[in-house]
């Protein structure tokens, strides 16, 4: 029996943004007679999230992902609809709500810039009223998982972005939140740091049965972490379901990548599928899923193949297709 942790019905959030024509004249006009435009950042979305789910919100810039997270974490006052997190209304910002959630934004930091991370942790310990022993254990466990034990006494401004993000994570997780909102948690990180972050989130989700929503531009994050994705565009949900299903629906094919032992004439291999990339002895083509084994076998028997790989299409490609429709 699963528990609904987050329930959103017909959520709306509009912003008024002032408009200005370019140039000085535009500025003067705007100063004298300011024009506003209503932006529908989130326009009537509904979804439910069960305990322990790890969900990815994807969509282009300005789609409404971050706004949704901000409403869910109680920062923004919604213009309409019903929002409940852990049975509470976020905007009321009750203590019971606040001690059970956390929000991490890749572009904002809560750590005190001039002081070592440990000082910020101690402040959070007091704010969230965490017991001494629990605090010690959590710090120890998290810093071991993230491998940051040796930098906790260095002022934050001297840390690298990756180290800082790890410490941000610790600061945000000290009070063992049941619900975690992550906005672009891997932004700006290098490949290794991204990978560490993903591994950590996956482990955290598994160990603590924490419910996690994350938004990301990096499809890799979503692909590695989330079974379920919510795709948002222009304030509306255009897909909510398993990642696998959407791949099957929009990409009922796989990519076969072949390195031949010698250069090959494109015409000879046309029958295998549409070649998407071709350079002498290297060819990549799309093959329908149900024909994969048949065509691979044929390829291997008819040509001298040095190497062959079969891959799912890049998820970026699929998302692009969806948005183009």
């Amino acid at each position, binding site marked *: 029996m699963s528990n609904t942790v987050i329930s959103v019905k017909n959520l709306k959030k509009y*912003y008024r943004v002032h408009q200005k024509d370019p140039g000085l004249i535009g500025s003067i006009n705007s100063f004298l007679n300011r024009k506003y435009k209503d932006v529908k950042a989130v326009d009537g979305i509904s979804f439910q999230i069960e305990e322990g789910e790890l969900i990815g919100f994807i969509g282009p810039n300005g789609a409404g992902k*971050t706004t949704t997270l*901000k409403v869910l*974490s*109680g*920062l*923004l*006052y919604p213009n309409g609809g019903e929002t409940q997190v852990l049975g509470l209304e976020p905007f009321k*910002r009750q*203590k019971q709500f*606040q*001690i059970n*959630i*956390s*929000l991490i*934004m890749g*572009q*904002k*930091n*809560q750590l*005190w810039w*001039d*002081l070592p991370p440990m*000082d*910020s942790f*101690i*402040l*959070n*310990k*007091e*704010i*969230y*009223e965490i017991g001494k022993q629990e605090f010690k254990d959590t710090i120890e466990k998290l810093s071991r998982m993230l491998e940051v034990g040796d930098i906790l006494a260095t002022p934050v401004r001297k840390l690298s972005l990756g180290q800082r993000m790890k410490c941000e994570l610790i600061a945000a997780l000290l009070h063992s939140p049941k619900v975690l909102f992550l*906005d*672009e948690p891997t932004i700006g990180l290098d490949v290794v740091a991204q990978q560490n972050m993903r591994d950590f989130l996956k482990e955290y989700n598994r160990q603590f049965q924490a419910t996690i929503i994350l938004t990301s531009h990096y499809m890799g994050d979503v692909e590695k972490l989330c079974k379920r994705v919510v795709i948002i565009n222009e304030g509306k949900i255009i897909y909510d379901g398993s990642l696998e299903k959407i791949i099957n629906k929009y990409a009922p094919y796989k990519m076969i990548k072949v390195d031949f032992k010698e250069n090959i004439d494109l015409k000879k291999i046309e029958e295998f599928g549409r070649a998407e990339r071709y350079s002498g002895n290297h060819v990549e083509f799309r093959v329908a899923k149900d024909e994969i084994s048949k065509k691979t076998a044929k390829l291997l028997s008819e040509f001298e193949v040095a190497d062959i790989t079969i891959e799912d299409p890049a998820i970026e490609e699929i998302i692009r297709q969806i948005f183009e429709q």
Partner: protein
Amino acid sequence: MSKYWEIFRITWQQFLIYRVNFVIWRLRTIMQLLLVYFIWWSVFKSQVQVFGYTASSILTYILAASLIRTIVLSSRASDLIDSINTGSIVNFLIKPLGFIRYFLTRDAADKLFNIGFFIVEISLLILLLKPPVIIQTDIAILIPFFLSIAGGLIIYFCINFIIGLTAFWVESSWGVLFLMSVFLESLGGGLFPLDILPKNLFSALMLTPFPYLIYFPAKLYLGGMNYSEMLNGFVVIAIWILVLILLMRIIRDAGFRHFSAVGN
């Protein structure tokens, strides 16, 4: 309660990092004090009494005013504006932390830090310059004196906080804050005792919150204020405190609703 104590501590730790900044700030405060002090000093070189004040009473006023200023005026509304403009305000909106109490604590930490230094500085000045200051020992004066400082402190905090909150709607609350600080210095009585102004202007001014920031407590310290004047003053302080606190809460809640947490 310990969470606010920790905020207090972390604020001090932060001060201790920016040493040069702090020294410059203290220098500014001392310069300001010396400037006003010597202007009045030179006025009294040729006269015994000006506007009904003697040299020793005006110099006492100036020194008392500088002490009061240190307690009342230092404020961190600029932090509030900053945090709204940059969006870092979300860091404490998301936590179980009283919004106003957080800033109040930061303010108190700021004040205590500065008061400590001020006491050392002013003691040195008194030792070196040996001004003819009046040392008030009458407990019946000192109690209302400290009470009025507390009142002024609350009024100033509220006014600053309200200005800070306007950052939810406009992008340039800095200008308003600056204008206000000039207002408070002059109308508050930081430069001269306000009762040297024309009578009508002075009476009108006494209905605004400004004179209660510096002038009223400094005047109390000098003594000689009668009971009805004193009572009037405290009634006006009480009314302003009520009005401002109410206003501050209304604006805070409206600000939260309007808050758009822009820029990611």
